[in-house]
């Protein structure tokens, strides 16, 4: 992609993940693009009062961006609204921030993940449509880890045998499901939870609880020591 990344890219489908103030009147924008993965670009003058981009550089909206440059920080030339607008409100909005934080933390730069991009789009649509957010988040977390190449065996245990719904397991990051007695620390869950997750079926209440614990443990394993801001913020709000 050496030559391709130098050339100007016209009207690429993108989402804004986050923006940072840059110099007096500009912004650095972290994009999630369909064909190039996570790309950072400078939006020159985007903080000026009359900037045409100012109102558009908002997260969770499908946009089309034109940029050029060969350094890590591209130059953003123009932006247009993409197909269909997404309106995230309330709880769904905070879930959107959570998705963006996960992508900013786990998605390496300039690593194309077309399938994840389309899954992100449909996840935002599901959030915008309302309804229960937990299953939507679990599906995205799982899809994201799998897309990024982390092995998450759900149908077989660590010995390579089929997971039995009624058995209790201990799920250990990097190793998978261990039978009771085989490991010491991990997430305790029953086989059905793993099988339900493989089927993307979160209708069972216990599956919801256990899948949440499992994904939280896996996420903190892959994210490292630095906690997620979005989770901290929700905890702080609950204290008020």
């Amino acid at each position: 992609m050496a030559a391709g990344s130098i050339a100007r890219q016209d009207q690429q489908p993108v989402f804004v993940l986050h923006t940072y103030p840059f110099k007096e009147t500009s912004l650095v924008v972290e994009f999630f693009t369909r064909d190039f993965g996570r790309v950072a670009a400078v939006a020159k003058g985007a903080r000026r009062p009359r900037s045409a981009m100012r109102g558009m550089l908002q997260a969770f909206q499908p946009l089309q961006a034109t940029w050029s440059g060969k350094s890590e920080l591209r130059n953003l030339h123009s932006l247009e609204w993409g197909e269909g607008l997404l309106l995230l409100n309330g709880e769904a909005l905070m879930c959107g921030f959570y998705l963006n934080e996960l992508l900013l933390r786990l998605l390496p730069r300039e690593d194309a993940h077309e399938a994840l991009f389309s899954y992100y789009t449909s996840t935002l649509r599901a959030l915008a449509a309302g309804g229960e957010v937990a299953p939507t988040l679990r599906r995205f977390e799982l899809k994201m880890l799998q897309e990024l190449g982390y092995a998450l065996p759900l149908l077989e245990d660590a010995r390579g045998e089929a997971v039995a719904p009624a058995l209790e397991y201990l799920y250990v990051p990097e190793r998978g499901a261990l039978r009771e007695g085989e490991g010491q620390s991990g997430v305790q869950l029953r086989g059905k939870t793993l099988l339900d997750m493989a089927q993307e079926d979160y209708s069972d209440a216990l599956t919801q609880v256990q899948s949440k614990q499992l994904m939280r443990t896996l996420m903190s394993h892959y994210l490292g020591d630095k906690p997620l801001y979005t989770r901290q913020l929700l905890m702080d709000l609950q204290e008020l």
Partner: protein
Amino acid sequence: MKNPPALEHLVESLRCLPGVGPKSALRMAYHLLQRDRAGAASLASALQTALNQIGHCSLCNNFSEEPVCPLCSKGNRDPSLLCVVEMPTDLLMLEQTHTYHGMYFVLMGRLSPLDGVGPREIHLDRLLKRAQDGIVEEIILATNYTVEGEATAHYVSELLKARGLKVSRIARGLPMGGEIEHVDSGTLAQAMMERRAIK
């Protein structure tokens, strides 16, 4: 060549201003010392005075020289209305419209989950206390219509509604003199979604 330590210290201090890098800071320092020493003296004393005298109003949280700012202590405002804004400039803009005669609360920021700005940084505990003084009847959320402003409005409204308070949000839609042909599609979509019945 190295600059004298006092000059280096000045350059370093100027860099705390937003958008000022090493080069701009050096230019500012040269200008103040060479071309405008009176201006520099006045800047130094103004900074010192402001630091000593400006605090936050105990009611609206805006910058104030007194414990309660002039706007809050003026008797002619409606104490049953409390308008929540992000920044002092937002308050000034609203005041210029001459349409609102209630009280204010300035958050001095917004919830910004990805920058680590949480409820502590924007004084939500003080807002909750202020809103529950027994006189305030309606809280009007006038935070920005950005994703961060929306998140702030959502969480503030949840916290206030849980305490039995009436909460409203400023309306959005086409601007004054706005023509549908020229308005951006984001605004237009919102205007369509949030249309209202004509009474």
